[in-house]
């Protein structure tokens, strides 16, 4: 069967069981868009290519399947680079197809030409410039294989226009032939044995669960390990939901804005069991002062992560789920475990949990202050309260998506996660503007779930044009803007570390008019200014399932995220909420 390169590409995507492509056409990718009309694959037309990339990421986060994006050459390709970099940092499987100028024009500075494979070299797991239509099925098969196996990540296929229009004899390869690609899977039994011995001997162990738990679908297995050993768990920003917050041994999020117990447990631990986590600087704080007395067991599928930051006593190079299964099997073989030795440790942790929960000032100020620009009154609604109400009023399996900044930290802190893959955010790259498109992608992948995005006003403005996409494609996402009129996290740093000199962080609560924006894009727009309005607005939004909803929550701009470990400081120097500081000095005496 003779097909054009474009037809072969679309057919190859069908062979990979792709159900949806997020994209936007243009000159060089035009030939590929023609056969899309006849394909059963759904195409979602975005308003900006970055949106296509983040939608594909949100889809991948929510479903565990690779997200697919398709854009044109030049600016189309460069616009999606941010999303590729984001997916690379957070190990999200993504297949991005870009158009390219004809092979005869490559290197001539042709219209809409860019060196796409060169530009994306550092932000993809691998990429291909296709020079022969006959290579397309093979490359597509390789692309999906590489994106989804080992440590997942984004890949990119760059297709010149003439390759898309030339013909080839259709075939579908039996498998892939990649002599340089052998991702690890099963753990070394000797390493498992050594890890089991450390686990049995530890008196203050902590499981440090990272995003690898979700990637390897190891949530259930992790629970088996915890139930067997009684070891408490911290879940990193990328692993929220990988272990239920309601479990008595869940300590929550560690790191710069993690809770006191999670941070301090790691500092005091004599054993850290790192499962698919990578000792990110936002978790470790000052590395030389991080968990100084802990031995480390490090399970990772990426050899380059093992020993990159912290040299482990036991390294297990394997798929996280298979390694945990082997560990559970090894530990079970020696009969029931004595959890009694952990009792003093668990008691200490429980004491910390009782003394240092996440907290905020629940009483609203008597008098609203004048805002920075002097034109209005400072709202008194607490952002944390909004998230608490949102959690209480939505189904337990609601998918929560966030952007980057204060609202992201509050969302991670104050939302109780019960299920894996219900938390979607930009962890590694910290991409503002992630939430709206990622929420759309998540809702496309899981139409059965309620999808809420908690966004900041700064983030929202970066990608909110995709609400038009959501309306046009009937994707009923719900967006809660925590509108504090500032680039809040930057403002917090300027407050704490730059003597309250606020440089270029004020955005205004009214510009743009978020309700007007929502309505202009075909969404329902609501505004909430007081505590009493919060619940009814959320309930109203929950009842709307035929169009997107945006709620503009006017929140207190003075609110800070606590606890906080200042950048570069030791985790021992964690700064708790002001209301807990007196107690802290009592405790230390």
């Amino acid at each position: 069967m003779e097909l054009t390169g474009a037809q072969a590409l679309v057919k190859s995507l069908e062979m990979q069981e792709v159900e949806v492509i997020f994209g936007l056409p243009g000159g060089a990718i035009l030939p590929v868009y023609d056969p899309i009309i006849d394909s059963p694959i759904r195409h979602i037309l975005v308003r900006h290519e970055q949106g296509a990339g983040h939608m594909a990421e949100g889809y991948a986060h929510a479903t565990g399947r690779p997200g697919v994006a398709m854009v044109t050459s030049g600016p189309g390709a460069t616009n999606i680079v941010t999303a590729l970099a984001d997916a690379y940092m957070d190990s999200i499987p993504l297949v991005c197809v870009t158009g390219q100028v004809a092979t005869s024009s490559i290197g001539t500075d042709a219209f809409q030409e860019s060196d796409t494979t060169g530009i994306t070299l550092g932000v993809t797991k691998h990429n291909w410039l296709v020079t022969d239509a006959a290579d397309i099925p093979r490359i597509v098969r390789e692309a999906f294989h590489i994106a989804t196996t080992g440590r997942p990540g984004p890949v990119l296929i760059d297709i010149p226009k003439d390759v898309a229009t030339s013909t080839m004899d259709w075939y579908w390869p039996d498998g892939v032939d990649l002599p340089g690609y052998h991702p690890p899977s099963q753990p070394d039994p000797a390493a498992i044995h050594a890890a089991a011995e450390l686990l049995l001997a530890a008196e203050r162990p902590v499981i440090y669960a990272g995003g690898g738990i979700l990637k390897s679908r190891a949530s259930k297995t992790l629970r088996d390990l915890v139930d067997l050993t009684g070891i408490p768990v911290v879940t990193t920003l990328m692993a929220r939901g990988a272990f239920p917050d309601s479990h008595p041994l869940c300590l929550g999020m560690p790191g710069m804005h993690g809770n006191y117990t999670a941070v301090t447990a790691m500092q005091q631990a004599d054993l850290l069991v790192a499962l698919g986590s990578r000792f990110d600087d936002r978790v470790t704080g000052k590395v030389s002062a991080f968990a100084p007395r802990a031995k480390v067991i490090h399970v990772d599928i990426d050899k380059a992560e093992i020993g990159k930051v912290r040299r482990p006593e036991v390294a297990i190079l394997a798929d996280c789920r298979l390694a945990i299964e082997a560990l559970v099997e090894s530990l079970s073989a020696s009969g029931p475990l004595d959890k009694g030795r952990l009792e003093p440790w668990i008691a200490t942790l429980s004491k910390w949990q009782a003394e240092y929960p996440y907290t905020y000032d629940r009483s609203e100020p008597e008098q609203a202050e004048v805002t920075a620009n002097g034109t209005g009154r400072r709202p008194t609604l607490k952002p944390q309260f909004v998230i608490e109400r949102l959690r209480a009023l939505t189904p337990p399996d609601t998918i929560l998506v966030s952007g980057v900044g204060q609202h992201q930290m509050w969302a991670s802190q104050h939302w109780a996660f019960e299920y894996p893959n219900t938390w979607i955010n930009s962890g590694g790259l910290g991409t503002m503007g992630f939430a709206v498109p990622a929420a759309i992608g998540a809702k496309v992948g899981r139409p059965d779930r309620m999808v809420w995005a908690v966004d900041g006003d700064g983030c929202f403005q970066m990608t909110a044009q995709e609400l038009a996409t959501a309306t046009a494609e009937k994707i009923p996402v719900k967006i809660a803007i925590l509108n504090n009129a500032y680039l809040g996290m930057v403002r917090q740093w300027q407050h704490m570390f730059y003597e309250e000199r606020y440089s270029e962080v004020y955005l205004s609560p009214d510009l743009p008019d978020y309700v007007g924006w929502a309505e202009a894009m075909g969404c329902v727009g609501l505004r909430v200014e007081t505590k009493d309005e919060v619940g009814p607005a959320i309930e109203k939004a929950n009842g709307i399932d035929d169009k997107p909803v945006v709620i503009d929550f006017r929140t207190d701009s003075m609110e800070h995220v606590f606890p906080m470990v200042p950048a570069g400081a030791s985790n021992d120097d964690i700064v708790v909420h002001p209301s807990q500081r007196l107690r802290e000095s009592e405790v230390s005496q």
Partner: protein
Amino acid sequence: MTQDYRPGGPRHRLLSVLVENKSGVLARVAGLFSRRGYNIFSLAVAPTDDERFSRISIVVDVESSPLEQVVAQLDKLINIVEIVELHPDEAREAELLLVSVTTDASQRSQVIQLVGVFAGRIVDVGQDAITVMVAGAPDLLDDFESLMRPYGIAGIQRTGRIALPKLDTSASTATANIA
């Protein structure tokens, strides 16, 4: 503080990297080094006897990052098939040197004599200089370079180190190989 900047010194470690012979592979390797802040001291690349593969010999400056981390990151490149570190004790190393040495007539015979000692070859002769080619172990070339320096070096180009593992010369293995 004196640091050993000589090839073969502890700062420099030689990796023999087998790669798929595909376009852009060298850019992937070089790009990885630059974006992760690793330093390349020298690099030589050529196809192997199997046209599907090329071999890149990279001398890595391990001052910037531990070799183990460099190797682990390199290994993640899909087109890299195999990475072997060749220790100087376990490898036969070679490098090629071209050097133009300024010599007046009075010194020329001394230079030619040294070229003979190092089994070099004179590939060009001018009024005030000669160009010499020397091949051999990298430390030998270092010595030759130092000996030429007093005469004046007008231009120099080295290829970077290439190497293969030493062959096993023990009798039993040899027999097994023949069998």
